[in-house]
């Protein structure tokens, strides 16, 4: 069969690939609040006056940045499953806690992204002049307002390029979730190539879709950075 009808014919595989792309986009987008948010939390804890807190957070970052992302995913996935089983047993015989593969995948990605992004956040937190927070406090803002209204906007501007790099890593890392049981873009391509024995066609199609996603988010990043820097040019 020609490649065109394999993709777009009546029994074509394009719908499956597009659904997979949607899952990939959703996996990446869903990991952003937990991953980047968790990274910011870690960064704030790393600057804490208490040494034990700092050490624990540094250890977390060193661990997840020093091992393969695939291994991190397995550790989070199987560790979570084991914990759920233990909890289910603790709750009694009738309880059987099931884990949704998509949710587990998002959690696993977030754990890795939090470790990566905390370094970016720490560098940006150090780069915001302390006088900004002092002035805000002197104006009578409460600590939450100081952070939200004064520090965070400046922080975001400084962190944006670094977070953009991590976002592109995140997009590509979602492909690892295909080894768990989530029908993302890469798994859809695997499925199609197994059924049709045309791996070259389908993995190329998947590559093209990944490329569209990463190139277009590159443009998005450039726009956001321009916007964040609009007062500085």
């Amino acid at each position, binding site marked *: 069969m020609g490649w065109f009808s394999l993709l777009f014919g009546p029994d074509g595989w394009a719908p499956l690939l597009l659904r997979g792309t949607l899952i990939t986009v959703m996996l990446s987008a869903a990991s952003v609040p937990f991953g980047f948010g968790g990274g910011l939390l870690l960064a704030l804890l790393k600057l804490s006056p208490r040494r034990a807190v700092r050490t624990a957070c540094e250890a977390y970052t060193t*661990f997840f940045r020093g091992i393969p992302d695939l291994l991190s995913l397995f550790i989070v996935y199987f560790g979570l499953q084991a914990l759920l089983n233990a909890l289910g047993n603790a709750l009694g015989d009738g309880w059987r806690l099931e884990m949704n593969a998509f949710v587990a995948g998002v959690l696993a990605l977030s754990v890795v992204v939090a470790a990566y992004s905390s370094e*970016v956040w720490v560098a940006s937190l150090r780069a915001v002049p302390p006088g900004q927070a002092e002035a805000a406090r002197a104006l009578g803002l409460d600590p939450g307002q100081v952070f939200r209204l004064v520090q965070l906007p400046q922080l975001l501007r400084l962190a944006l390029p670094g977070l953009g790099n991590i976002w592109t890593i995140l997009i590509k890392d979602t*492909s690892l979730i295909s080894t768990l049981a989530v029908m993302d873009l890469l798994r859809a391509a695997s499925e199609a190539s197994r059924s049709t024995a045309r*791996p070259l066609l389908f993995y*190329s199609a998947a590559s093209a879709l*990944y*490329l569209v996603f990463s190139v277009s988010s590159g443009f998005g990043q450039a726009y956001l950075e321009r916007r964040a820097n609009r007062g500085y040019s």
Partner: protein
Amino acid sequence: MLPYLLGWVGFVFNVDLLNAWGWRLLLGLRVTAEVVLIACSLGFLLAWPLSLARRSRNPLLAWPVLAYTAYFRGTPLLCQLYLVYYGAGELRPALASAGLWWFFRDAFYCCIFAFTLNTAAYQSEILRGAVLAVPKGQLEAARALGLSRLAIARHVIWPQAMLVALRPLGNELISIVKASALAAIVTLMDLMGETRLIFARTFDFSIYLYAAILYLAITQAISQLWNWLERLLSRHLIIARAVTAPVAQTRARGPALDPVSAEF
């Protein structure tokens, strides 16, 4: 509830497992080291001509390299690996008649092939950036001295560019160590492959943590080695830096080796 959670901790660290299966992990470690060292060195050799072509004014040279780097940096390494490993199976008759089938039949060679092309794309961008970072005056001064193009490249540009490229190249080496775990998915018995096999046999979660400790040891060792290398190779700059650098900058140490650039 507490005994169950304590049972979970026991489940996480199991020492007997290491006695029974530790030697297999070491076998896997060797395969990982082979893949990483071969792919990184070949990638480095390939990166030089690529970075030269990318800077060329001839669009016939520069554009294909641009497309090459865009593809390898913009798509997941796992997808590239599948394309090579499964795609080679589809091309089997052609590869066999070209006498290349022995190469692409083997998961080990497929991994080296895919990792080499991938890291060459990243390394060529690192080298390009490093060469661009050499101050223009250096080139002009060398020209004014009447040095030949080759002598300028070898004695003026190269030594300075390599010093700039050193740290990102170390990050790239760490990235490839981490990325090499993907080889396990296409059946190669590297450290990750052995780990998965042992988990499949024993259903013992601790094996993942032991593998993590081994990977961590490798990446931390590379990180330390690179700090040492950088101190060694830039010691001629230390005095100049101490004299010229403002106080605020001498206090801040350089950024830690950054495995964030890990890419799949």
